[in-house]
């Protein structure tokens, strides 16, 4: 879940690549309608999907993502091996790979990259190096200890990375686009770490607009006056060459305009079509590529704000009141599922045994009565000005849920704020009794879901104000620390059950599949649950 600058997509890590074949008889340009402008072309400092969509074509990480799944696969590293304690990781690197500036990719380059990411100035630590701060938890010389300890280039083909602590997120987290491998020379020349504060924003060094990676494409130009980004094929790419010579990203913030552009044939694809448009788009001969849902929509509850919510019976009663089947059927795109726990079923640790809580108005009423919370008031918030993959239309979802709650006699007080205009602040600061939010996984790890939600000392769910909060946090830490994968998965399954049946800190609602639409004549695009689509396999036939 990248921070969301544009009210659109989210996406993640590295890149995988498939074979190349010169496009024959096709158009040499694939035009993509992007919803927002990229931030910086240095993926390390970026955090939003719009940027990653572009940098993903330019950069590769040690680990890539298997097309169509959220699973990791070898990319610049051909294999990796942990030590028994899970603290030392040896990566065998692909040989013969060159950065587009001609520099060789080797272990030294890997370590240069990691050291660069580890050693950031204060300004970058505070904001831009967001993903590192979030996954690795600390920087060189920082107050908090980082997971990352050191990197050693054994030889050209072997890099050894040492951690301070074990986490189940490593090495999957290396699929994150932010941790892509960049050319050491270009980084140096472009003074890449020199992020400066300027007014109330940051000023990025020259490198940020002239990135050098190993991917199938190179950045050609960013025409800011016309808001288009052009990539050209990297003809020296180590793998299969990209099939289409150019990719153009045309920034079109307005969704219905994107659709019109597609229908007019001036773009070949765009992201996140409105579910209501899917049918119309398909009828017009386009393909709607539905991504497997790798997200969760939940209704957050704040027992600290509303004391009634301290009682698990109240939380359960609320949950029973929600007619989620109807919601999924009428408000969410086809393929959406009712959630049974706080993670999608593709994540290791998903408990297949859990059943969705039944919609039961009478039961809910009874339970509420039992808890002495009849006619309770619930201040329930939803965001405006936003559409997320897990909630295409927050207001409509809120409408449905609050109607359900009112049906059991809960008095719902509507609160709404623009996404950036107070909603996220409000959630973080615990201003609402209940709220709608969700999460799209960054990579395939249970910790990335429930660990993020309930793990830290303070979290959005305010679990620390409950009787179970500390226990849950400890359990999460422990599970995350289990090095053995099988054991860990079982532990997570058990934990999921506990969360749902004993704690119920929040109410998971649904998983919705976001989609991507491509126009006529576009072939070879595989939708990714992480929105990590690669465009090097795409062909566009002239029609």
């Amino acid at each position, binding site marked *: 879940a990248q921070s969301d600058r544009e009210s659109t997509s989210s996406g993640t890590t590295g890149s995988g690549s498939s074979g190349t074949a010169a496009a024959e008889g096709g158009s040499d340009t694939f035009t993509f309608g992007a919803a927002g402008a990229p931030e910086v072309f240095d993926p390390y400092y970026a955090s939003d999907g719009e940027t990653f969509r572009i940098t993903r074509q330019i950069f590769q990480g040690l680990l890539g993502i298997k097309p169509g799944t959220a699973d990791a696969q070898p990319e610049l590293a051909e294999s990796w091996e942990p030590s028994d304690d899970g603290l030392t990781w040896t990566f065998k690197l692909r040989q013969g790979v060159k950065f587009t500036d001609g520099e060789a990719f080797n272990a030294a380059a890997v370590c240069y990259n990691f050291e660069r990411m580890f050693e950031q100035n204060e300004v970058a630590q505070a904001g831009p190096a967001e993903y590192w701060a979030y996954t690795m938890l600390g920087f060189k010389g920082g107050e908090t200890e980082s997971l990352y300890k050191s990197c050693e280039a054994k030889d050209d083909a072997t890099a050894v990375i040492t951690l301070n602590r074990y986490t189940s997120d490593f090495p999957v987290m290396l699929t994150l686009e932010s941790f892509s491998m960049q050319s050491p020379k270009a980084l140096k020349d472009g003074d890449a770490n020199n992020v400066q504060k300027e007014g109330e924003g940051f000023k990025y060094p020259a490198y940020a607009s002239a990135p050098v990676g190993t991917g199938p494409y190179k950045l050609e130009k960013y025409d800011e006056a016309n808001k288009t980004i052009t990539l050209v094929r990297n003809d020296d790419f180590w793998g299969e060459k990209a099939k289409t010579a150019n990719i153009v990203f045309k920034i079109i913030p307005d969704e*219905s305009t994107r659709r019109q552009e597609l229908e007019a044939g001036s773009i070949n694809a765009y992201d996140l079509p*409105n579910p209501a448009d899917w049918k119309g788009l398909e009828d017009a001969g386009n393909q709607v590529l539905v991504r497997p849902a790798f997200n969760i929509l939940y209704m957050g509850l704040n027992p600290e704000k509303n004391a009634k919510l301290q009682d698990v019976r109240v939380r359960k009663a609320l949950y029973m009141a929600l007619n989620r089947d109807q919601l999924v059927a*009428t*408000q969410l795109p086809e393929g959406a599922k009712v959630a049974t726990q706080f993670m999608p079923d593709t994540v290791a640790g998903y408990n297949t045994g859990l059943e969705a809580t039944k919609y039961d108005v009478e039961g809910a009423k009874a339970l509420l009565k039992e808890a002495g919370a009849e006619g309770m008031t619930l201040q329930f918030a939803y965001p405006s000005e936003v559409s997320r993959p897990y909630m295409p239309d927050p207001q409509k979802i809120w409408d*449905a849920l609050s109607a359900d709650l009112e049906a059991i006699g809960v008095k719902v007080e509507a609160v709404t704020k623009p996404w950036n205009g107070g909603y996220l602040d409000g959630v973080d600061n615990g201003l609402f009794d209940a709220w709608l939010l969700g999460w799209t996984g960054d990579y395939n790890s249970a910790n990335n879901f429930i660990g993020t939600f309930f793990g830290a000392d303070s979290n959005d769910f305010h679990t620390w104000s409950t009787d179970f909060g500390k226990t849950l946090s400890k359990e999460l830490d422990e599970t995350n620390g289990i090095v053995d994968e099988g054991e860990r998965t079982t532990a997570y399954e058990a934990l999921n059950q506990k969360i749902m049946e004993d704690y119920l800190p929040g109410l998971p609602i649904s998983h919705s599949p976001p989609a991507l639409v491509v126009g006529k004549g576009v072939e070879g695009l595989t939708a990714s649950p992480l929105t990590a689509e690669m465009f090097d396999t795409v062909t566009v036939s002239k029609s």
Partner: protein
Amino acid sequence: MTDNPKGWKPGARRKAKIDALAQAAGQVQDAGTVADTPGVSLIASAWRRLRRDRVFLIGLTITVLFLLVALFAPLLAPHDPTARLLLDKVRPQSNPIPGPEPGFPLGADNVGRDLLSRLIVGSRQTLLVCVFATLFSLIGGLILGTLAGAFGGWIDSVVMRFVDIMLSIPSLLLAFSVAAMAARPSQWTVILAISIAYLPIFARLLRGSMLAQRHSDHVLAARALGVKQAPIIFRHMLPNSLGPVIVQATLVLATAVIDAAALSFLGLGNPDDRQPEWGQMLGAAQKYIYDYPHLAFYPAACIILVAFGFTLMGESLREALDPKSRR
């Protein structure tokens, strides 16, 4: 020096003069110029002119219809506008917007609420928004304009600089910021936002005519009479400056509805769609505009119609109140 046909002696016969005068005055009465009919105020005579004005009548009819619909909305609406009657028919992909069917002549929206009922009941909130937005901006403008126009001098300078600053910010942006400032967006934030955007226009307009009034003969006459400052301002200057302001108000009534739609479009409108409002319906419809343009069309048509009504009224009012166009 000259031949004087009347042969009067200077200063003679004052009495005769007064008699002649009384006679003359008496004849005026005889002639019946000042009949015993009750007086007709300026507004009444403007109304008499307007009554024959076809343009005005069309505008009035539309407006009155709109008012009636708003007034009797609950009776007119076939269904509860918040009930999701056709929700079962909604399928996000195959049938996101249920079409017309018996009892639902316009179909439903994306959560299965009857569109016609929402349109009818929506007239209420729409009326609320445009009337209150206009009212607030009018009141604000009246206060600032009166301050500036009635007192002049440095008060005028300060107030007008302030108004200038407001004017120099694009009005929509102003509305934006106000709407965004609100802790809890509602129709009242929309109203407030729109009224702040229009306030400077009213202030300027009023100040202009107030200043003109300040130097007008009848205000001077009131001053000469020893009338106190407050009645001069509120009985003489203000009422006589209101003409252009009222005309502008009818035009703002129209644009307020449209602006409410723009705010909704930008996601700053009233988020609670349990009280339907045309602008907000229009804003919500943009998501479906490609395949279901009728969602946007109906509220847009209603807005255009009402705006049209207000504008026609305003324009003919402007003409009726303009002494020049009377001829």
